[in-house]
């Protein structure tokens, strides 16, 4: 436990907490066989000439036969003394702790107290029991109650008669679904999920360009329902959307559909239990659901980005609640997207992509990679509009049964991409404005004298593998109609502790 949380120099903590300057402090609990064993020893010490302050963590009538046992059921003294095991015996001199013994060790107790007959007849050694102050969950509560845990965020008092869920709605913090109340205890626990300092500023979050600290991320992650171990992923995703090429302001402000989609690669996805398999793009997995939601809530609450405000989306997309999933690396023969995008295998990353909704690709008949690639190309052509090119990026999410066809033929992701690049050379005469009786299309000036135009800009097609083992159903996720340098470029960013 750090001195930051204890808030006092450890060597004087015992004296400050107990009022004992010279003598002994003993901390014990009835629910401990070793404490029970040493009851006669404590009685002998307490009857002696030295000051002995005896604290009981669970029952002030224990140890029996000792007068003036101090009640530490609130565990304040145990916390301030950083007790991890009971019994713990501490010797103080001149207001400073000079020595402590943990558990029952007869020779050590005798040396510490100077009473050489102590514990005659007892076994020489018995291990102690866990202090109640370090039981799971309790330590966080004690740190909040008695420690020196500081928060930069202002505190908002909710009236006892006010429903806290309703209070959060009325303050406009919610995306429309209920939020977990961000109490100091929950935020404190959330911050334990990262090694970053709470005060670290990740950047200025659009649209209000307000500083977003690790602590503000934690507050919003609590509200989103995250577990503390998701914090490094949430932080990396927020950092990624803040990078200039992603253009978070534009992604939010556009009248188009898009929203940050978060794709996780590397071992972290498995360690926090993300879903990359059946229903990977759907509901039901806490990490997928809440990491994406936390990013959205940061943009809403810290950035100030709200529908009818700077968020001008005409229709929006359900992914604006949350859209986060992991690539299925474990069962894939393809290299992970993070490796394709320049990171070493085994490095955990987030990739943020400004994208729309999921559009399914049904192909239950293709058994050759050539046929399946043509299916993919046809579906990818629909991104934004069949007659538009170079505007939007896209993600192709390939399901396991489709990947199997490429695997059998030895087609890597790069080979598939090469095939798709060829298939997605759109004939100029089909896509020019006015062709097919449709006014929309590529301007003639943009086509020049070219006979074809690539559907996607260079590096504008991402390929990931995800999904359940059954079903020949892959998917297209269309990107923002202003992808690339004029709008948003996908960003891959490493996840750190």
């Amino acid at each position, binding site marked *: 436990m750090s001195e930051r949380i204890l808030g006092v120099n450890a060597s004087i903590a015992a004296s400050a907490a107990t009022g004992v300057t010279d003598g002994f402090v003993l901390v014990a609990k009835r629910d401990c066989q070793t404490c029970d064993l040493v009851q006669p020893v404590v009685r002998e010490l307490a009857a002696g000439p030295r000051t002995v302050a005896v604290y009981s963590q669970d029952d002030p009538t224990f140890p029996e036969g000792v007068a003036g046992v101090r009640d530490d059921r609130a565990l304040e003294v145990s916390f301030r003394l950083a007790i991890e095991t009971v019994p713990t015996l501490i010797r103080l001199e001149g207001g400073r702790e000079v020595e402590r013994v943990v558990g029952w060790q007869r020779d050590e107790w005798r040396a510490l107290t100077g009473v050489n007959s102590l514990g005659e007849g007892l076994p020489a050694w018995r291990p102690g029991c866990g202090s109640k102050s370090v039981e799971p969950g309790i330590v966080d509560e004690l740190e909040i109650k008695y420690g020196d845990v500081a928060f930069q965020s202002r505190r908002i008092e909710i009236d006892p008669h006010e429903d806290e869920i309703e209070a959060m709605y009325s303050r406009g913090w919610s995306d429309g679904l209920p939020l977990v*109340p961000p109490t100091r205890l929950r935020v404190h626990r959330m911050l334990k999920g990262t090694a970053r300092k709470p005060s670290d500023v990740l950047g200025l979050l659009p649209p209000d360009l307000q500083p977003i600290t690790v602590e503000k991320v934690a507050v919003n992650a609590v509200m989103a329902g995250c577990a503390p171990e998701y914090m490094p992923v949430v932080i990396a995703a927020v950092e990624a959307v803040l990078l200039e090429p992603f253009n978070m302001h534009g992604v939010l402000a556009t009248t188009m559909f898009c929203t940050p989609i978060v794709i996780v690669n590397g071992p972290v996805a498995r360690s926090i239990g993300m879903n990359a398999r059946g229903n990977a793009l759907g509901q039901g997995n806490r990490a997928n659901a809440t990491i994406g939601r936390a990013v959205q809530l940061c943009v809403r609450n810290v950035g100030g980005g709200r529908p009818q405000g700077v968020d001008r989306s005409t229709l929006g997309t359900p992914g604006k609640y949350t859209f986060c999933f992991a690539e299925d690396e474990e069962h894939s023969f393809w290299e992970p997207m993070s490796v394709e995008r320049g990171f070493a295998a085994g490095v955990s990353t987030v990739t943020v992509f400004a994208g729309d909704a999921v559009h399914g690709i049904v192909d239950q008949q293709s058994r050759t990679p050539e046929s399946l690639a043509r299916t993919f190309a046809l579906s990818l052509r629909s991104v934004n509009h069949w007659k538009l090119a170079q505007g939007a990026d896209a993600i192709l999410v390939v399901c396991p049964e489709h990947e199997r066809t490429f695997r059998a033929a030895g087609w890597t992701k790069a080979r598939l991409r090469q095939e798709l690049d060829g298939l997605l050379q759109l004939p100029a005469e089909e896509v020019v404005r006015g062709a097919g009786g449709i006014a929309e299309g590529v301007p003639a000036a943009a086509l020049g004298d070219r006979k074809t135009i690539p559907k996607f800009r260079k590096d504008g097609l991402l390929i990931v593998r995800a999904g359940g083992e059954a079903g020949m159903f892959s998917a297209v996720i269309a990107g923002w109609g202003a992808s690339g340098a004029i709008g948003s470029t996908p960003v891959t960013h490493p996840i750190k502790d």
Partner: protein
Amino acid sequence: MELLDPTSEISPVRRARKAPPDRIAGLTVGLLDISKPRGNVFLDRIEQRLGEKGVAVKRYRKPTFTRPAPNDLAQKIASEVDLVIEGLAD
């Protein structure tokens, strides 16, 4: 319960009251009788005074003063008038 503010804290903790209009001429004013005795006497007089100033008035009545206004009444008032005067006590 005490919560930590998830926002950038550029607005005050206590939400500001909606600013009152500079003038009421041209607005529609709702008069809400909460069903307390003699509330109608007070509101009749207000209606008369507002009428003299040329302000449009609409009258509403809650079924009982012991409970908040039913949703349909609150929504009806919000959609029909610019401000509301309520007779709160007898």
